[in-house]
């Protein structure tokens, strides 16, 4: 009898091209996503060695990190930004890589458009020079972030040198209470594991609460796996996955080959964490890394480091509920999909916001869809700014940024010092919490608006 395997092991084993003793394996990569920030030096490397892109047909590019989200025709693009755009355009054209660029109808955040175009598929190995590549694991793919040297390796060879990570089962039973979202679930998992808690491991999210999640929600969960230090996060594909992918531009015609893509009964994981979804609350972060999160009704823990408290301007023992805020950011590859916009709009409808609110859809198709549904009107009438798609205030590279000392409830994935602008203070939360906080101008519990 064949030994039972985990989902990770099945995909890994099927992609090993070569393995020599004492060496990492040569792993085949099915899909390589690239963007403007981490690819120029890799293409320069190829040129210096006189190499071509081995599989341009498996390489897909977009422009997302530095793109302005104001009306594009009018936006002023600083020279450093313009040069990055120019380079990715030239590199894609020179090397024959498809680019969903600035003027494309399918432009968007790399981790949003991969799935949206049906490029992301179960069983694949997917890499990108971006740590949130873990997002694609929501489809039962093995997807992880790589550095620019590795981008060059994959461009040249379609392969990577990889050491086999360990496996980590995150089993979520029960069901999420009303008003508690996938974002709250993953923030709770990271708070439990700590920011480095899953280093060297690949997480597999399992259990009935995970099965019940929509694809958008699964992407939110897998997206933030890296915030616990995990190499990747994944969820076995099922009918929910296939239904979501069916009919998309590059999606497979048949899903039969994917039905066995799950961890076998009796498969062993190196570690396991069990979570009871029914006991969770909406979450909010109070510190300077995503592991510093707590239930929204709680108080800032006594053991919080002085550096984090000083930076955040908070005191141990204080409540976060009611903390006054300046800005709300609804967007990023964690929470910029249509269901995220619908959920924020459901709270904002017919109300006015008391903070500056940026709503930034993850892709142009999502923006169009939202406009068709009238969500843009809901946001505008509430007093929010309705923007063009991109990374925007998740990484503050395009001019969308916090001023020193400002507090922002953000649906993005990182609250590191300066992440949303030098001196800016980020409180990570779900789109529901972000919308409720926007209305009150303070950190608020969205459950009272549902």
């Amino acid at each position, binding site marked *: 009898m064949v030994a039972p395997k985990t989902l990770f092991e099945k995909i890994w084993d099927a992609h090993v*091209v*070569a393995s020599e003793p*004492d*060496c*990492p394996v*040569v792993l*085949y990569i*099915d899909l390589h996503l690239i963007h403007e*920030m*981490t690819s*120029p*030096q890799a293409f*320069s*490397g190829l040129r210096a*060695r006189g190499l071509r892109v081995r*599989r341009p*047909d498996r390489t897909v590019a977009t422009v997302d990190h*530095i793109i302005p989200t104001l009306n594009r025709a009018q936006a002023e693009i600083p020279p*450093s*930004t313009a*040069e*990055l755009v120019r*380079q990715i355009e030239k590199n894609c054209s020179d090397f024959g890589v498809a680019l969903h660029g600035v003027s494309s109808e399918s432009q968007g955040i790399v981790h949003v458009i991969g799935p949206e175009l049906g490029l992301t598929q179960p069983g694949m190995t997917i890499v990108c*020079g*971006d*740590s949130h590549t873990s997002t694609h694991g929501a489809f039962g793919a093995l997807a992880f*972030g*790589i*550095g*620019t*040297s*590795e981008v060059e*390796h994959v461009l*040249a*060879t*379609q*392969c*990577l*040198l990889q*050491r086999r*990570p360990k496996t980590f089962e995150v089993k979520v039973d029960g069901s999420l209470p009303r008003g508690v979202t996938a974002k709250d679930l993953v923030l709770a998992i990271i708070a439990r594991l700590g*920011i*480095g808690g899953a*280093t*060297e491991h690949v997480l597999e999210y399992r259990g009935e609460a995970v099965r019940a999640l929509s694809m958008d929600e699964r992407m939110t969960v897998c997206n933030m796996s890296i915030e616990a*230090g995990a*190499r990747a996060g994944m969820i076995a594909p099922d009918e929910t996955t296939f239904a979501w992918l069916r009919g998309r531009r590059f999606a497979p015609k048949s899903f039969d080959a994917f039905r066995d893509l799950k961890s076998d009964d009796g498969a062993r994981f190196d570690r396991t964490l069990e979570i009871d979804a029914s006991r969770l609350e909406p979450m909010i972060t109070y510190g300077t*890394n995503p*592991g510093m999160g707590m239930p929204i009704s709680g108080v800032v823990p006594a053991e919080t*480091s002085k*550096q984090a408290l000083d930076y955040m301007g908070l005191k141990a023992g204080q409540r976060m509920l009611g903390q006054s805020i300046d800005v709300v950011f609804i967007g990023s590859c964690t929470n910029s999909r249509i269901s995220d916009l619908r959920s924020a709009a459901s709270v904002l409808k017919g109300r006015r916001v008391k903070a500056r609110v940026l709503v930034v859809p993850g892709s142009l198709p999502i923006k169009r869809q939202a406009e068709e549904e009238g969500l843009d009107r809901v946001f505008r009438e509430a007093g929010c700014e309705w923007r063009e798609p991109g990374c925007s205030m998740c*990484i*503050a*590279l395009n001019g969308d940024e916090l001023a020193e000392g400002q507090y922002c409830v953000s649906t993005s994935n*990182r609250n*590191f*010092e*300066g*992440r949303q602008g*030098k001196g800016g203070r980020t409180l990570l939360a779900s789109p529901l919490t972000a919308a409720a906080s926007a209305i009150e101008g303070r950190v608020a519990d969205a459950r009272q608006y549902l």
Partner: protein
Amino acid sequence: MDPITTFSGKTVALPIANIDTDQITPALFTKVTVKTGLGRILFAHWRYQGDFVPKPEFPLNRPGAQGATVLVSGDNFGCGSSREHAPWALVDYGFRAIISTSFADIFRGNALKNGLLPIVVDAAAHAEALKIAEQHETVSVDLPNQTLTLPGCGSVKFPIDAFSKKCLVEGIDQLGYIMKHEQAVSAFERATNSEES
């Protein structure tokens, strides 16, 4: 990349846990298309006030820390984004090794590809290393024997996988290693029916 075997270097301490790549190289300064000259932006938000004016109290700015090549940091160094600008900046600044109790996966891989040695030590040795680095004393690293020698407290072994060590010691280029498997890659593509269509 120059091979690394043994070297000695002056230390500097940055005893903060979970230093992420947004602190090592703030994203704002990474809008570049080259790998060189990034030493200037290393720890920019912590290191400077205003327009690149050094903050005297930041450890790297102390007079005694000038010329340091070994950084002793808190736990879980390099978490966050995959940007290779972080090791590019550390190397450009002059660092050759970082000592911590743990490193984030992607950072660790990126560092090794750029000749920057992540040295993992246990909590006891880490505490010693921090004390030594507060005084900017010199430590020595012997990569072939995987030892770190701390003045006044002897040598400790540190782990590194055999392949990474070989690459560093012999200056092996990892892309070259993968390219040697070209035939296996083509065979894999044929066997899995994933040739270019």
